[in-house]
């Protein structure tokens, strides 16, 4: 799909992505290309990737590929699209008011929202914080129901 950003399909690609992004936020979006919300997310990412390029890298991961299933399990990705943030190979958590701090579920309403989120992550990471609070007001955060474990 040439209207998507760089999509990773192999675990090794994901690994190298995580390991080679140094001192920049790595935004990994897990999703399926056939999903409209994922495509909307991709649209927003595509528009902002250049603006955040100095402090962030963005990549998409196709969850249908077999190789990355281990990651899907590891990251507990159940709802798509899900976005996980990394900094220097460390996972960054963000408290958005939802139950799951480990990832961002859903798309962003605006390009600026995405930039704000990435900026908040970057600032927290530069200060040495592994968890940051979301700068967006709650009405702009997509809500979701967290599926319970073993369900």
């Amino acid at each position, binding site marked *: 799909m040439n209207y998507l950003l760089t999509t990773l399909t192999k*675990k*090794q690609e994901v*690994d190298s992505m*995580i*390991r*080679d992004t*140094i*001192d920049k936020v790595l935004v990994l979006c897990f999703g399926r290309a056939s999903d409209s919300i994922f495509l909307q997310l991709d649209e927003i990412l595509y528009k902002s990737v250049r603006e955040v390029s100095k402090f962030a890298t963005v990549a998409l991961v196709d969850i249908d590929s077999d190789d990355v299933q*281990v*990651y899907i*399990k*590891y*990251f*507990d990705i159940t709802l798509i699209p899900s976005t*996980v943030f*990394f*900094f*220097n*190979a*460390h*996972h*960054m*958590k963000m408290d958005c008011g939802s139950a*799951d701090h*480990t990832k961002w579920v859903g798309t962003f309403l605006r390009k600026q929202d995405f930039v704000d989120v990435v900026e908040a992550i970057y600032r*927290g*990471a*530069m*200060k*040495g*914080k*592994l968890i940051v609070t979301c700068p967006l007001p709650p009405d702009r955060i997509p809500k979701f129901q*967290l599926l319970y*474990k073993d369900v």
Partner: protein
Amino acid sequence: MPIQNPNPNKKKKKHSNQDDDEDDTVQGKQRTQFEFCKACRLNHNQGRRHIYFPNHKKALSSFLSRFQSKLKNDVAFYLKKPMPLRPEHAALNRLWCVFCDFDILESDSSFACSGNAIAHLASAEHLKGVKSFLWKYGGGMDRMDSFRISESDFTKWEKKCKLLKSEAAGGGSHGSLIGPLNDIHNESKSEYVNSFDKNKLDCLTSDVKCSNSVVPLQDHTIERSQISHSKICTVGPQILHAGTGVGLGARTPNGLPGFFGNQHYTHSVPKEGPAYSCPNDGKVYSYEGIAIGDRHSQGTSSEESRLQTQENGGGNVHSGAPPPWFSAAEKIQLDNKLNQGLGDLVSSLGEQMKTSKLNPKRVGAAWAERRKIELELEKRGELVRHDFGADWLPNFGRVWQSGSRKDSRKEFLGENKTWRKVDSQIEKPSQFQPYISKRMRTDNTAE
């Protein structure tokens, strides 16, 4: 216009017109009128809060240090060695007192340059001004004394001035205070009067007088620097022969082909003391002498200045030689070219500097540093890229786990193994699982 609400915590004002400047510091709101901060040079409506802001503190420190350096250079020098003031030079010698906000002119001061300034700095009004300034701008009240002249210093200075005056009046053979140079040794000094004026102008206006620090403008003021050499440095400026025409190239025993005739000076005046006044040049060129004197008090660059004089000793405006700053300018041009060449190097260094200043406490800093080195080595081809193994997992805090992140990974791996075992039993009898040593794991995902 901000509305001022009556605040019960407000202090009672003495004058009603001060209400405009009062602010609700208790409530921390910006209810004040705009006022001008002299240090930051901006209008703000933050009232008393403004002086605690870091920007203001920075601006204030530079502001005060500038004034202090002016004081140190000019006034302190003349405090120690009062020189008589020539009316023509007086117009250039003015000091703007930042605390009292007025210009101190030397129009009718009979004493040395900055006689009026010294008098002002010692006065009570100035003290008041300093106090109110420091209070208003938060400079620290303990620094008051560095901005004024104490009574004792002032009286000392006055005494010196009186002494000087009496000396000048009394000592006939020592030349007159005012009047042309009657220096039998130096005939063509009159030629150099004008150039000296210029030099003095530069000197005074550029505030280069300083007895402690190295003179930055050696190239600029070749004529003056020529005189400055260490041997004279201990003696006061009034002893200096400023205006003696040195273009003659008369050489001093100490080998200085001085532009000015310091020769006499070096010969006959080894001792210091403001009481001693040089026989020939009179006080006309005391200013030039002062300028020179400033130089010589440092004495560090005397050797260079000597060399320079040898180079430029003969030339001056009247002989049509290029001005000394011309050659200096060429040097500067050369330097610029060199700098441009080095620009790239510098910029790359700058980048390196930038990255090295990244917060060491940032997330994954240690890992990042290690990884950078690894990448660097890989680039150079020294280190063969070793795959971290298919089972490498990043540091991840899982959703439903309640331990550290390492635990989460272990947990996951444990789950994985069982899952895989199940799979493997179904698929293959033995599945190859690469063994990842703890070290490799911890290396890659340092927590």
